[in-house]
């Protein structure tokens, strides 16, 4: 860019394309001053967020296209060779092989999909159910609020692992959807509570009174004026919970009530490897490493999002 003269009385902003910018905003401030625009500006500059997003991107690609990472199909029984059981790390088997001679790297890669699906689906269901119920209860108050709040207290009283064990025992089958359902049934009250509290705070703001005074209907106030102001905290908790749901799925699969063979799950792999741990530690360590990294990535993402959306919480 050639040196252009900044008009006298000068704007401090660096002129773009040789023309001074209109308005009084500082050059460094984000272009979009909305809550989300501001948060995005803030997030991109956070190493925590960048690191977490990178990890999550890799994991999601792994979940959607596992064949990009490995040519071995672990669902094909012919890919395993019993004679090769518990081999160490080698060029042929990067992470070694398990008790049945299956390639651990391929199984770990293919295990990402179930973890991500359970985590995402549970998060979406709890956010929808808990979020909507919380919105209605917080907005309407009264008997509906009392009833829903008492119901959630009952759920809080149930130890979640015990509850999930019980629900899955009733289903008798363990797959992605039953695990999701068991986790969602037990955890929606948390989202409900957070949403309800945020809605009650937003409801008493002057802009809601002003919207009413200018003729907005109850639905409009609820979804246009209250929801956008209350949803930030739900998004943060949902992101952090996503990591916990993935860990919970692994835990339930480990206990034998979650996903079951021939489904591939990191929890299942850990469980299978535990008895021969001293002989073949890699069979346990690699799925455990992936599991930890995934959970960590989502918790870090949630933390970064929370900091960006609400600087006061820092």
């Amino acid at each position, binding site marked *: 860019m050639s040196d252009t003269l900044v008009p006298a009385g000068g704007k401090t902003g660096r002129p773009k394309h040789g023309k001074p910018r209109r308005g009084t905003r500082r050059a460094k401030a984000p272009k979009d001053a909305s809550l989300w625009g501001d948060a995005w500006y803030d997030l991109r500059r956070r190493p925590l967020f960048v690191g977490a997003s990178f990890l999550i991107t890799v994991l999601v690609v792994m979940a959607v296209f596992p064949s990009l990472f490995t040519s071995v199909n672990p669902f094909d029984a012919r890919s395993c060779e019993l004679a090769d059981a518990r081999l160490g790390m080698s060029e042929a088997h990067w992470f070694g092989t398990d008790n049945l001679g299956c390639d651990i790297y391929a199984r770990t890669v293919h295990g990402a999909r179930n973890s991500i699906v359970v985590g995402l689906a549970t998060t979406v269901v709890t956010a929808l159910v808990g979020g909507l119920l919380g919105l209605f209860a917080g907005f309407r108050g009264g008997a509906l609020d009392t009833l829903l709040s008492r119901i959630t207290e009952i759920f809080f009283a149930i130890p979640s692992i015990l509850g999930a064990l019980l629900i899955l025992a009733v289903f008798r089958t363990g797959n992605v959807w039953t695990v999701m359902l068991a986790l969602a049934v037990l955890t929606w009250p948390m989202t409900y509570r957070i949403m309800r509290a945020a809605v009650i705070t937003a409801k008493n703001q002057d802009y809601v*009174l*002003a919207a009413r*005074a200018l*003729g907005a209907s109850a639905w409009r106030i609820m979804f246009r*004026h209250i929801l956008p*102001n209350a949803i930030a905290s739900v998004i943060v908790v949902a992101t952090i919970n996503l990591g916990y749901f993935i860990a919970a799925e692994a835990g339930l699969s480990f206990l034998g009530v979650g996903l079951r063979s021939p489904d591939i799950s990191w929890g299942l792999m850990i469980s299978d490897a535990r008895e021969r741990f001293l002989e073949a530690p890699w069979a346990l360590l690699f799925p455990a490493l992936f599991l930890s990294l995934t959970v960590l990535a989502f918790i870090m993402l949630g933390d970064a999002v929370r900091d960006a959306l609400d600087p006061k919480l820092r």
Partner: protein
Amino acid sequence: MKRTSAPTVPPEEAPDGEPLLVVDDLHVEFVTRQGVVKAVNGVSYSLNPGETLAVLGESGSGKSVTAQAIMGILDSPPARVPRGEIRFWGTNLLALPEEARTRVRGRRIAMIFQDALSALNPVFTVGDQIGEMFRVHRGASRRDATKKAIELMDRVRIPAARQRVHDYPHQFSGGMRQRIMIAMSIALDPQVLIADEPTTALDVTVQAQIMELLGELRRESEMGLILITHDLGVVADVADKIAVMYGGRIVENALVHDIYRRPAHPYTKGLLASIPRVDQKGRELYAIKGMPPNLLDMPTGCAFHPRCSYRQDDCVVEAPPLYEIGPTRAGACHHWREVLDGSRG
């Protein structure tokens, strides 16, 4: 009231001889754990098109509650209206179903608030919020709504409206925010605008500009303006008449110059005396003794008697009615003649 003849929405045209807005013997109470708080006890006032009524009183006098009752935005429970009528061109708003009241709000009667920053939604641009009035009530497209928003921002004299229509409330100064709030409230050409302490949160020079703007808008559109304030200085130039409230009642009701020249109620007199004046520099500022009444435990007789320098025995026993003092004024004081003459106090 006959079911068949009950109109659902106030008429568009003024019926003969009806003032624009009449508040008639309005009572509002709040049911709390400590008991029933009687916030408004028989308030009556009226407003004609193009007229400015200032409602004056300190915190807890019931001035804002009356306004919120007119708008129908009191939370009930805890609030309830056991008695009274609010007539908009002859139609009792309190008898309308909620759906019809929603149609009155914003279109026929609009309201602006003290703190414009908290009265604007922080997550939407000001253009969105002004334009929303047209989108909700008139079904305008997004593009038309933005165009209208710019026109309105021009009308309330926000500089560079076209550039600033996509800015967020926090990017504006206090005075500009109040202008945006005003733009939203006049978007649908309401016939009544209620301004609840519109300048209290602003500094003095901006106060004057906002009052001037409200005055101009009122003249242009012939709307009735109800100005709620605790600041006598603010209303002097703008208001036509004043209703002074104390303890949930109107204690004095008069044209603005009558009040300033010769108040007929000791409370009004006290308020006037407590305005700082340049020619009294250095002297101690007058203050009304005592505290505003506790609405849960109102004094017997006249609510003002514990603080009143004109008090006599009858004030403690009997609540004064609103005495007619002249053709255009009334005062709720047993001894208004003495107050008017300024013989004591």
